[in-house]
């Protein structure tokens, strides 16, 4: 292999690609706008909806209000609740989403309050629409109001016996988060990010890979260059380096975009991070890049080998489509909670990178699995590269008709 020749091929392909609007868009523009768009666009919409939902009063109905006049009156005065007159068809109305919840006081409620300890306590029923957000919000408001009243009743009873509240609440549990704040926020974000990175890395490689193989065949230029003095290996290397360049650029652009977005749009990220400040350290990004690098090599080489099999652009697409699905599944598997990076999974291609990225952005750096991931991906990449070189030597592949 002559490095000079590789350089010539590479530089030509690079120049060619930089003049191709489509690749430029998918390499630079797209990853740059993706994250901001998703966080800002989605975040704003979602926030507006949430504030609107919070502001809206929940329509509820009270049944058996005469059994609990004091509590009913309290409910009527509660902010955020709109009490509708009692009616028979409440169940239907709840199911139709015209009524958010119904609270029912059983008969004997009032007397039971006055005679504590005699028999089972009365049960207040709350009817609602499970999984319906606004119904559940109404239930929360009802339960809050009811519980407040309950506390007052209890306190009166305690006072009558000269007891303090602590007597019936012996243990108070305080939950304290000890995880570093970035880890908390990152834990949520880390779910989606690995998938995106893998996906974008693949997409970045796909376009040029098709273009430089099937595209050349279609245009008729492959034959010409094969007849030139450039050795096959140099040709493959040059093309491979170009595809790698685009793949890495896309990945870098995505990471950058992600980093910048998290730094400047805190409010919008709130929804995704649960209100915690989140920023990615430079080391995390560097580490992530380190793991993504061999994966890019893997994708670039594999795509190159695969797309060379095709006669035309259209056919190449028929191949890359399924390949994309094959890549996406392990990438998505990394999103499943409970799938943790261990030594075994660290050897599964694509899945391992997905999991490592998840760990990194979640704030942990498990060195050994990362090393295993890096090495195994390098091994796979080596195999793919070998395959690519082999393909360019096979006449039946190069000259299909």
């Amino acid at each position, binding site marked *: 292999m002559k490095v000079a020749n590789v350089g010539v091929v590479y530089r030509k392909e690079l120049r060619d690609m930089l003049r191709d609007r489509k690749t430029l868009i998918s390499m630079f523009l797209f990853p740059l706008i993706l994250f901001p768009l998703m966080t800002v666009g*989605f975040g704003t919409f979602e926030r507006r909806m949430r504030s609107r*939902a919070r502001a*809206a009063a929940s329509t509820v109905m009270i049944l058996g209000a005469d059994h609990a006049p004091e509590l009913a009156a309290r409910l009527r005065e509660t902010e955020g609740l709109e009490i509708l007159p009692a009616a028979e068809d409440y169940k239907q109305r709840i199911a139709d989403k015209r009524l958010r919840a119904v609270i029912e006081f059983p008969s004997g409620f009032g007397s039971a309050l006055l005679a504590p300890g005699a028999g089972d306590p009365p*049960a207040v029923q*709350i009817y609602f629409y499970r999984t319906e957000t606004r119904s559940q919000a109404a239930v929360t408001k009802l339960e809050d109001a009811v519980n407040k009243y309950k506390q007052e009743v209890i306190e009166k009873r305690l006072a009558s*016996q000269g007891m303090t509240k602590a007597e019936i609440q012996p243990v108070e549990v305080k939950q304290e988060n000890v*995880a570093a704040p970035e880890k908390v926020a990152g834990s949520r974000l880390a779910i989606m990010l690995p998938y995106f990175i893998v996906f974008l890395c693949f997409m970045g490689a796909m376009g040029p890979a098709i273009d430089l193989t099937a595209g050349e065949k279609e245009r008729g230029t492959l034959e010409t260059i094969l007849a030139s003095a450039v050795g096959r290996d140099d040709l493959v290397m040059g093309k491979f380096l170009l595809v790698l360049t685009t793949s890495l650029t896309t990945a870098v652009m995505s990471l950058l975009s992600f980093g910048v977005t998290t730094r400047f749009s805190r409010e919008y990220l709130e929804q995704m991070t649960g209100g915690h400040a989140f920023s990615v350290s430079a080391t995390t990004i560097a580490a992530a890049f380190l793991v993504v690098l061999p994966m890019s090599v893997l994708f670039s080489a594999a795509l190159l080998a695969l797309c060379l099999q095709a006669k035309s652009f259209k056919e190449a697409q028929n191949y890359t489509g399924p390949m994309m699905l094959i890549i996406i599944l392990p990438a998505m598997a990394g999103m*499943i909670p409970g799938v943790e990076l261990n030594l075994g999974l660290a050897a599964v291609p694509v899945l391992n990178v997905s999991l490592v990225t998840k760990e990194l952005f979640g704030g942990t750096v498990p060195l050994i699995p990362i090393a295993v991931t890096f090495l195994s991906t390098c091994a796979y990449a080596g195999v793919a590269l070998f395959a690519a070189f082999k393909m360019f030597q096979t006449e039946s592949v190069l000259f299909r008709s």
Partner: protein
Amino acid sequence: MNTRQIGVVFRKELMDTLRDRRTLINSIVVPLIVTPVLMLGFIGAAIYIARAAIRANPEVMILGAEHAPRLVESLGLSDRIKIVPAAEDYIQRINEKKLRAAVEFPRGFEENLKAHPDRSQIVKIYWFEEEFRSREMVREVQRQITEFSTRVVTERLSARGLSDQWVKPFTTKRANVAPPERVSGNILGFIAPYFLIILCLTGAIYPAMDLTAGEKERGTMETILASPVHRVELVLGKFLLVMLVSMVTTAMAVGMFALSALAAGRMFGQFDPELVLTVSAKAAAAVFFLILPLAVFFSAGLMAISVMARNYREAQTYLGPLMFVVILPAMASFIPGVELNTRLALVPILNISLVSKEVFAGNYPWGIIGLIFGSTLAYAVAALFLAVRQFRREDVLFRT
């Protein structure tokens, strides 16, 4: 305009497309396979893995165990918790996710419970906020503590001659009154609209490209333009085909989605009987009809755009970003609690996403549905006009 000519064009495109493997795969195989794999395989795997993960290594550390022997004993009895010996580095271990939580009992915990009933004892639980396994452990520990607490209270109350009902003036019970399809429909309504809209779009993309840019690339565009068929007839014939493919894809998607949901309901129903997934045929059919005008809109729009391309590759350049313009509004169904009003009902794609969600949940807001249907059809007709106009422009058909 001659309907016979439209028919001739349509029939030929149909014959041609049925022989095109890629379209068949896209329209039939993909919804057929991808849907169940995603819904059953993926979600099923997610559930099983998550549950297994929770059960594996449920390590909790107890600090100050000597101050709460009784409570520590009952914690030890729970098979969901594995107590590990106390150590200094618990914060670090929690951060590294090697330790799920650490419980700290203050000095003299149980003694004070006996000696000073008028004071609450504070127990601290250190955890990794939001991490799901940590959360499960915290819940379990809380449960145990609450049980213990209740026993203490009962003891104290009986010492005063009071029953423990004395501190429970009343209980509150929740009861779901919505029928199972509506409950499940609400859940499905989050993902289904997005999924179906995307499949409707992808079903239309390939034939739209093939019948416009593809025609140009193959060189047959010129030939057919020299035949007596009018531009309008040509566009309509092709459009009908693209729409048919899109509709078939959507029908397959809706069908497979419903079947997968039912299967998932049966397979995973055991975990929470109230949340069993089920789909009514009525809802499925209704959603299909709602997406129909969208199929028209997509077909016409995609054709109008891809006819500007000289070949497949260029067409892809145009249509690629388009996918994202569609994906974002389609994702509206993911946001909980969005209220559909007249203003939103006029935003294309977003409106269909939201109204499909309602329909899945068994809600049929007819007024809004009519508005959405009408507005989408209006957009569709506009797109069709645009497509015809494109086919009349020489600079579009013969780009060099």
